[in-house]
């Protein structure tokens, strides 16, 4: 074995650091030792020829700028939650509607607007059990232009409230549901550019916020109140 000349492949494998025949042959054989040396030189020459230098700084900047999109969604969600918690004391004295509109914009614009995603009211309604201290009415919207997208828990002045995300064509409607004793006391006037509608029903305060005509919100309210009178517990 030691006496046998290496094949061209043996030589290159050796130069590449891969498994190869017994090296002792190289000490005995000038021909094979030269071949190995030449292969190593060729590797070095190719390495030099193929070097293109470091990646451009502009590319590096582009990639690290994307860091914000690298952040997992829950960091963004936690930031929103922290902002809401910090803002709570300020909300106490101020009209509530502008804040609810801000929450609507924040939630609707979020990558994960709802925690329970379901068009099925029989999924969404029980999901709220134990998460908010009241039964959340979720009507059957099948015969209406609205569709249920999902829900989540939101906080108002430290108390849980229910949030339902409802779709109408491409529009998104936020429906906040508060227990009356923990509901915002002063809603204030509706901010421009959005429609809002609030109503009370069975000890709950409903506040709908959306960029749809206010007539649509009236239809939504009717769907909620009609449903409750039909299905009594």
């Amino acid at each position, binding site marked *: 074995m030691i006496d046998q000349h290496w094949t061209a492949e043996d030589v*290159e494998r050796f130069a590449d650091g891969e498994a190869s025949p017994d090296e002792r042959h190289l000490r005995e054989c000038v021909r094979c030792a030269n071949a190995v040396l030449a292969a190593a030189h060729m590797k070095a020459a190719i390495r030099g020829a193929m*070097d293109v230098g470091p990646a451009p700084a502009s590319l590096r900047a582009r990639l690290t700028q994307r860091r914000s999109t690298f952040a997992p969604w829950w960091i963004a969600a936690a930031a929103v939650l922290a902002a809401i918690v910090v803002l709570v004391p300020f909300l106490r004295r101020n009209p509530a509607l502008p804040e609810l509109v801000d929450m609507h914009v924040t939630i609707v614009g979020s990558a994960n607007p709802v925690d329970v995603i379901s068009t099925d009211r029989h999924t969404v309604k029980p999901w709220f059990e134990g998460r908010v201290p009241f039964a959340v009415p979720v009507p059957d919207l099948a015969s209406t232009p609205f569709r249920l997208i999902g829900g989540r828990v939101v906080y108002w002045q430290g108390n849980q409230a229910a949030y339902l995300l409802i779709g109408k064509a491409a529009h998104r409607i936020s429906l906040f549901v508060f227990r009356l004793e923990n509901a915002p006391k002063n809603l204030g006037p509706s901010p421009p550019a959005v429609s809002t509608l609030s109503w009370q029903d069975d000890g709950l305060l409903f506040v709908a916020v959306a960029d749809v005509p206010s007539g649509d919100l009236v239809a939504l309210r009717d769907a909620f109140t009609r449903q409750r009178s039909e299905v009594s517990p």
Partner: protein
Amino acid sequence: MEDGRERQSFEELAMPLLDSLYRYARWLTRNPTEAEDLVQEAYLKGLRGFGGFNPGSNIKAWMFRILRNTFLTSRSGLRAVPPEPLDEEIADGSTPESHFLQRADADALRRAIEELPVEFREVLLLSDVEEMSYKEIAEALSIPIGTVTSRLMRARQKVRKAFSGRK
């Protein structure tokens, strides 16, 4: 999440590979602008697929494979795939490497490599520049190790021939 150890983030693992990935992209596309776009797309794909990356496996081979697949499905990649016809044999095919070395100047060598089909350019880069093992190269290119070996041998043979033919 999966065990006690903190899982390294995608950025921590992938950003140190930027120069290598850019170099690979340059040699795949032969165009600096396309190379930058390719690298950027590969990073985005890597980030998106990072959940499926097994922390014990080789991030370099993994990222190279993503970049390569991204290239192959791009417009210029699809153009590059049909291998160019084999070079006509050159009379003095068996130029000893010592001669080759004497004549080797980096610019001419670079031009010779640039003219090789992409599957030869990439094995030269991965082996000679990135110093990846045959196993790692096989993983990055999704081909058997035996194919890595033979492709590498042929690539170097082609460089030697092209280079001696040029002179």
